[in-house]
């Protein structure tokens, strides 16, 4: 067995080599991007945790309504858009172009809903006087970490909606393969995954207690 395996690898050395992960290069590329992007987000959260722990008067400004309710609805939107995304990938692999595009559009709607709700939340906080380096409640860097973390994530969701739009357009015209849809799905699920950490760390640890 082992010998046959070695031979297969050795034999393919000049033929482009074996595929050690048995996935396409686009998919592997997206996974590698996800790893590097996960590091980017991790380091942003690292900075947030450092500033937060080092500040004695870290504010807890999020009331049940609107902040926590909005953030929960936004979580619901993102999680649901991940389900519509797997449906899109599934339909794409079955070769059902029309259905795949419909699911992609539903996914984009979920992402757009997330961004709109989040922008409302931002405007609400800005109206309350939160700025990147000052706020009415306490540690001045609260705004910097909040806008930095959620802004970076919102940028990813916005780019994701555009990315899915391009994929939906191309797949509907049969210019892109089902693998392209699957790879865009990986990106979308990763954006969802990051929010699973941001939601508790940013919102649930700063709930305003009456």
């Amino acid at each position, binding site marked *: 067995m082992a010998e046959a395996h070695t031979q297969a690898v050795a034999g393919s050395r000049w033929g482009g080599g074996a595929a050690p992960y048995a996935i396409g290069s686009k998919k592997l590329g997206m996974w590698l991007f996800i790893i590097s992007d996960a590091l980017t987000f991790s380091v942003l959260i690292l900075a947030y945790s450092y500033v937060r722990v080092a500040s004695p008067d870290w504010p807890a400004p999020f009331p049940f309504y609107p902040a926590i309710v909005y953030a929960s609805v936004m979580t619901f939107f993102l999680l649901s858009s991940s389900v519509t995304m797997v449906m899109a990938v599934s339909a794409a692999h079955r070769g059902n172009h029309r259905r795949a595009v419909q699911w992609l559009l539903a996914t984009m709607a979920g992402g757009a809903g997330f961004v709109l709700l989040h922008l409302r939340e931002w405007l609400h906080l800005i109206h309350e006087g939160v700025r990147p380096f000052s706020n009415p409640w306490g540690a001045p860097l609260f705004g910097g970490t909040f806008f930095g973390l959620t802004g970076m994530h919102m940028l990813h969701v916005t780019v994701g909606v555009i990315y899915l739009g391009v994929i939906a357009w191309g797949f509907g015209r049969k210019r892109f393969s089902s693998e392209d849809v699957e790879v865009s799905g990986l990106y979308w699920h990763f954006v*969802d*995954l990051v929010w699973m950490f941001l939601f508790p760390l940013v919102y649930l640890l700063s709930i305003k207690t009456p």
Partner: protein
Amino acid sequence: MSAPSSYEQAAGSRLYLWVWVWLLGLTGVEIFLGYEHLPLNLMLTLLMGISVIKAALIMAYFMHLRFERLSLFLTLVPALVLCICLILIFFFPDSLRLHELRPQ
């Protein structure tokens, strides 16, 4: 390079809906915990524990990692464990001592 047959086998939409229900349920538990008056240490442990479970569910089922070759899993997961360590290194454990040392 995609493998439609294994994809179809793995991908009953019922399975995805169940994962979705679990993710929503765990999110609900997190919001509930947010309103419990727990010590920060315990709260962080619970919230991050649940978040790691949710991330694992998303990666295993939505991102299809459970159905990929083990070599891909073994390549990706150590890097993500490093990310989790980065997220938590200032929260645990020494930093929490600072909270207790603070003058109230």
